[in-house]
């Protein structure tokens, strides 16, 4: 974990830190309450420490690694943990760690509704946000002031706007994919204002002319780990021009922000305007529409689906994604990983072959 950074945030600003498991959570609430969110996506590599074997090997590495990491004291710099209701495995982790050992500090859950946006789901999200806000306010030792929540909403939408600008303007951005993703993923632990400053600097580098000359591809998947996958892609002569990683592009809120009224109600409204995500069991046709739109907008020539092994929400969507793009004669490459530190030589070869195929498609076109 980012221990030094967390320690500095605590001493310099008196902020509490909350470790947050993937994926969707109302970060605005945390910001408004002056709580630093530090996301726990694994971490990468094999699970380590004496608790490495407490979750079966047929469960995704995010959950296996997170438990081992937490139980080994890796997240002790944080003052609490938040488990969003992402999938069965995270739901399991949210009881294994606090109830069976591995986490003794406060544990919170954010249970979001599954399925499409029914009236019951809307009422529930509003109530769940209110309930979480109360719990977090008690944790932070301060009350939630509406003006601060509005400010947090504006801050996070500004961050999203810049992230969208960088992702959409990818072709004109003189950065490699690993550089861009490293930057975007710093938002997983930086205090939002600091992240905003970094994004602004990157945005200033956006030019008018093409800065990328490789084969443009769209990528959809869970989390861009290991980064060597993107390095290999760049080395093979391609770059990501359309991003739908759950950890990155899928979390960019593109809807406009309301300007008045109850900020919690606005937060709840925004929840239903987010991009479709498998972990919310959103309407699958909406997700497919979203992906084809992104594909068309981005000018990609092919699609890479990068999933984590044993990730049920993502794995269930693959057949429909394949079918949809096959019907449009778009090449699709499915890549499955396990948060390994480096990708295998075999995968490098597959990426190279895929990029070569896309290159030929371009020439043929």
């Amino acid at each position: 974990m980012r221990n030094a950074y967390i320690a500095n945030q605590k001493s310099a600003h008196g902020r509490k830190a909350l470790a947050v498991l993937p994926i969707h959570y109302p970060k605005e609430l945390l910001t408004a309450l002056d709580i630093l969110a530090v996301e726990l996506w694994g971490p990468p590599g094999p699970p380590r420490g004496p608790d490495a074997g407490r979750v079966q090997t047929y469960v995704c590495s995010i959950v296996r690694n997170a438990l081992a990491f937490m139980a080994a004291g890796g997240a002790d710099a944080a003052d609490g943990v938040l488990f969003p209701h992402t999938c069965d495995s995270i739901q399991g982790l949210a009881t294994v760690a606090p109830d069976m050992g591995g986490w003794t500090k406060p544990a919170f859950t954010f249970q979001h509704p599954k399925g499409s946006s029914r009236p019951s789901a809307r009422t529930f999200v509003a109530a769940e946000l209110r309930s979480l806000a109360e719990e977090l306010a008690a944790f932070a030792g301060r009350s939630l002031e509406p003006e601060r929540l509005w400010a947090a909403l504006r801050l996070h939408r500004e961050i999203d706007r810049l992230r969208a600008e960088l992702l959409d303007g990818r072709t004109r951005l003189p950065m490699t994919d690993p550089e861009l993703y490293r930057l975007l993923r710093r938002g997983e632990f930086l205090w939002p204002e600091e992240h905003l400053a970094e994004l602004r600097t990157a945005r200033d580098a956006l030019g008018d002319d093409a800065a990328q000359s490789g084969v443009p591809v769209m990528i959809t998947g869970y989390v861009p780990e290991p980064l060597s996958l993107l390095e290999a892609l760049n080395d093979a002569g391609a770059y990501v021009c359309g991003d739908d990683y759950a950890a990155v592009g899928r979390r960019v809120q593109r809807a406009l922000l309301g300007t008045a009224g109850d900020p919690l109600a606005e937060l709840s409204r925004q929840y239903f305007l987010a991009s479709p995500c498998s972990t919310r069991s959103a309407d699958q046709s909406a997700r497919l529409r979203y992906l084809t739109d992104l594909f068309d907008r981005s000018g990609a020539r092919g699609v890479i689906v990068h999933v984590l092994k044993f990730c049920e929400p993502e794995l269930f969507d693959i057949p429909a994604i394949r079918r949809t793009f096959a019907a449009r004669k778009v090449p699709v490459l499915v890549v499955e990983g396990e948060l390994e530190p480096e990708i295998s030589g075999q995968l490098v070869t597959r990426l190279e072959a895929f990029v070569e195929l896309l290159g030929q498609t371009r020439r043929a076109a």
Partner: protein
Amino acid sequence: MITRRRLEYELVKHVVGPATLRFDTLRGELKRRKKKPRPDSPFGPPLEAAHKLKELMSLHYLAGRYADGAVPVAWVTSGFPVEFLRPFGFHAVYPENHAALCSAQKQVPELASAAEAEGYATDLCSYARCDLGSAFTGKTPVGRLPKPDLLCCCTNICQTLLYWYRALATHFNVPLVLIDPPFVYGKAKPHHHQYILDQMEELLAEAARVSRKQVSLAELVEVMHLAREGTALWGECLDASRNRPAPWTGFDGFVHIGPIVALRGTKECNAYYRLLRDELHDRVKKGIGGIKNERHRLMWDNLPIWYGLRELSTLLAERGFNFVCTSYTNAWAEGGALVDPSQPMASMARAYSHVLLNQDLKNRLSVLERLARTYEVEGAVLHSDRSCKPYSVGQIDLKDRLQKALGIRVLLFEADHADPRAYAKEPAENRLTAFLESFA
């Protein structure tokens, strides 16, 4: 006006089906009488009720072949509050029960392969792969499954069901209605309860729309009474195993669970469990055991291994071991008590969110401890089910806790509940044998 299709359905369900199946049972009985019982069999005499069970479940599937176009058809997850559907006249099909049947009949590899060929990963739940394969190919050991008019999914046992039912909704192009009970960590929050109530209202509206029928609260309450009684009767059947020897085996329990899953809230279901309960009580009185020589009593956690029931139960019975309780069969006996027909909606919301898999591990542990004590077991086998994350995550800790709290031996046994391709038979059986030998 009654349609021809409806007439066929009613005839099959009430006249032709029961008569044909009764005839089959009698013929089977004659054959069995001629056959001499195996003197070396480690099992007690077979349960008489098993014939009735076969008739009941076969009739359910037989009538199902004629259901679409005759009555509204719903495909329903096992944890769904089916009580709400019955008064609307839905014929309910349980894909999980169907997948278990496919597995017992060794058809999962073929059916699951059809789903895998469509891109469904082998790491996904084998029930889902099996049933999707069946839907894509139309192949099923029950002749034919009726096409659904409505898909009914409740995520109180897992989220997988929702991903699976979404795929079915696309395939059949029919609506999907969802009950999504928030997971219960400690105590359920009031707004979580309200969310379930709101969804129940949405379900009733959708059921009325699809079935084109309005239903009164009194009709709902009547079905709730039946369902509550059914789960209580099932509980009494399970309870019989508190006796020594237990009058049946835990594996028998897995097979006899069919009606409480697929026919809950019907008179037929309750009549069946009355029959079974009486037979079990009778066996207890006569000292007849599920196995001939019950030396050790064990507990089973997680789903059964459907394709290996016979082999595993023989392996155990030959060594004098019986699974006298299982968390899986027990789960179907627990919820009913929470249903209070005087508070129909509120109690249903509570009952359906407080199922075993929708509650935290502290609760799971206390259920397992209670079962182990009540049924006086000396050991437990926790089936670490590759397919079922919600049931399996946490079992490694549960194993340690059970060992420490109760001083019993516990084995973590890795397999898959439906797909034999994910089961390393020999090493698994060796592990199990070594575990059993440790009781010597």
